[in-house]
């Protein structure tokens, strides 16, 4: 590392063996983590960076990638697009990073994408999952290891349809920004396919960070829908759940939303049993041995259970590792070529990076909320794992969008 560069260095809790350090001290691989330490993204970013750190430490302890150590530099975008763009430039110009991982907010991600693509630096996106990154605004300098909005919504819609095949009248409620908009658009598309005579009665768009959902709840209930699809998550979902419960909402109306670990931790016993949930892959969705091993490591490091964000961030580092090793170089163009079509044995099972749009065939998960005596919070039962290639937009579908947005490849 350059001495004196002001940067938030990965605090290496498990120092690499001395010998290894010496052997690989030449020319480390510089990895920039660009995250949004603000508002609703704060916690997600913290988890993700923790996941990245664990992976980096592991890799460095084993001698790094192609004999080179990884240097991690973390930057904060404050969840503002302008700061995001500037910090990206900073990472590229001043810190001279080879690769980027992040960020959380879709809006910031798109701003980062322009800058980073122009400077030809590869970014793995593992949380901001707007489809625009790989489809509408495709650039070869991005790869996605989180199910995108399209995949996620399609899988969740199919799950809901399987559980409630008779439901025809729907309402939706989603945070009013890129992510929510795209999820609900995909839901509308898929439900029309599955139930041609279905109807969406009403769509609510609370702003992200909304704390008072009563008016939304009564407005939805007034429509008497057969089911409600929602892409609320995090604190918003906590607030919604608590405010909806006294209305008997969950007894009356089948509901699906992004119920994952942090929401369960916050809600405790207030989490409604039997309600449908979708998620991106934490330990109770996919308790394979590799995942459980990671859980142990993570708990040792942070004293808490890892959530999906940490899992995906961890996988991102390993994807980079695999690609660099295959390319035998840290040269961006070579790594991109190597990455296309690569298959990674990740915490969430195997997935492949589709050469066309760099979308990973990462799985989507659905389940039903239930108590489990082994955990101090509720988790899922009846989990369904849908491999990404069953729900993603077909290659023709992607090309069609590209025709509209002017992407050529």
């Amino acid at each position: 590392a350059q001495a004196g560069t002001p940067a938030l260095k990965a605090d290496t809790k498990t120092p690499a063996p001395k010998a290894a350090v010496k052997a690989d001290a030449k020319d480390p691989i510089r990895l920039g983590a660009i995250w949004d330490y603000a508002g609703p993204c704060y916690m997600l970013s913290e988890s993700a960076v923790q996941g990245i750190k664990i992976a980096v430490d592991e890799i460095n302890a084993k001698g790094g990638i192609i004999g080179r150590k990884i240097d991690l530099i973390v930057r904060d975008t404050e969840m503002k697009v302008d700061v995001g763009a500037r910090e990206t430039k900073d990472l590229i110009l001043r810190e001279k990073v080879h690769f980027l991982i992040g960020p959380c907010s879709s809006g910031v991600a798109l701003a980062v994408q322009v800058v980073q693509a122009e400077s030809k630096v590869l970014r793995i996106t593992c949380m901001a999952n707007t489809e625009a990154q790989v489809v509408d605004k495709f650039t070869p300098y991005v790869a996605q290891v989180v199910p995108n909005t399209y995949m996620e919504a399609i899988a969740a819609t199919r799950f809901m349809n399987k559980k409630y095949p008779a439901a025809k009248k729907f309402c939706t409620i989603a945070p009013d920004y890129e992510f929510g908009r795209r999820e609900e658009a995909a839901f509308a598309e898929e439900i029309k396919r599955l139930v041609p005579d279905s109807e969406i009665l009403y769509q609510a768009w609370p702003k992200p960070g909304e704390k008072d959902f009563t008016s939304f709840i009564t407005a939805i209930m007034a429509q008497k829908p057969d089911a409600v699809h929602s892409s609320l998550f995090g604190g918003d979902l906590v607030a919604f759940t608590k405010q909806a419960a006294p209305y008997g909402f969950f007894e009356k109306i089948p509901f699906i939303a992004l119920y994952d670990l942090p929401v369960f931790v916050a809600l405790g016993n207030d989490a409604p049993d039997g309600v449908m949930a979708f998620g991106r892959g934490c330990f109770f969705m996919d308790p394979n041995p590799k995942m459980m091993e990671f859980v142990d490591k993570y708990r040792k490091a942070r004293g808490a259970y890892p959530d999906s964000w940490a899992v995906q961030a961890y996988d991102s580092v390993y994807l980079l590792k695999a690609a660099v090793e295959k390319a035998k170089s840290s040269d961006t163009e070579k790594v991109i070529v190597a990455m296309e079509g690569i298959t990674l044995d990740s915490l969430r099972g195997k997935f492949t990076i589709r050469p066309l749009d760099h979308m990973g065939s990462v799985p989507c998960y659905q389940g039903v909320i239930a108590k489990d005596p082994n955990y101090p919070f509720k988790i899922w039962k009846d989990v369904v794992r849908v491999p990404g290639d069953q729900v993603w937009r077909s290659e023709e579908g992607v090309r069609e969008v590209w025709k509209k947005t002017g992407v050529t490849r």
Partner: protein
Amino acid sequence: MEANTTDKKSSWLKSGWWLILLVAAGLAAPYVISEFYLLILGEALIMSLFALSFNLLFGHMGQLPFGQAAFYGLGGYGIAMLLTKYQMNFWLSFVAGIGLAALAGLIIGIFCVRLRGIYFSILTLAFGQLIFVIIYKWHDFTGGDDGIQGVFPPEFLKTSVSYYYFVLLVFCIAAFILWRITHSPFGYILKAMRENSERTEFLGVPIARYQLIAFVISAAFAGLAGALWAPFYRSVAPSTLIWIKSGEPVMATILGGAGLFFGPVLGTFIITFFHAYILGFTHFWPIIMGTLILIVIFFLPGGVLGFIKEKLDNRKKRGQQS
């Protein structure tokens, strides 16, 4: 009492040599500092322009607008949308962005200039938020939370250095125009309205109309800053016009010194560079900024530049006495 009133003309602020020095430094910058800091310098110039537009109303007219970010954002959105959605010429879009901000300034100004003091601030805040909400919620047209990406300047401005020179040029011209305005009869009337608007009305000045003109000018310059910004980082997003952004020129101006023309510029430079530097260490930047603001409010009441000027003036006075 005022021994040095007659030689006001020769006071250090007006003596000009330091301005030439600064411009020379600006021209030389690309050869001296790293690309990253050049970037920050460009950003500081743009934000300085934004702060100057704010200070036309605050320091010179005595009204504190808390919705400037709306005009700044509209400037950015104007250029971005015309450029990316309608494939218009860059320069036309650039001018249209400023025009859009000025137009919004006119419409909003009509309602705001009737109020004074904190009421004015709050109403501008409200209108700023209204514009923010519209842009934020009008997903199909403005891209909502995504914002708009791909706002590229013409080929010859694409490199950091060339765009930096472009920013420097625009900044110098704009700052000069603003400086002239504040020293013109119109600028004096603004000052009179700041001091006592009732009295000024009885001098035969239609204050509402003059405030409106100032409001539109200020909005146009804020729009100019926004239109410079969007191609700088190739994108705009609603967060450029949220009210928190409106707080930035307020901070910069009071930090640097609202009473002096270049106070806002100094304040912006301090904040921008400090910010760029600090973010490298920690993401607890706001707490540092907050403390900095409090320190300046308490210990440097006239802002940093005001403080420096006072020190220099005192030294001069002492020099004259001895």
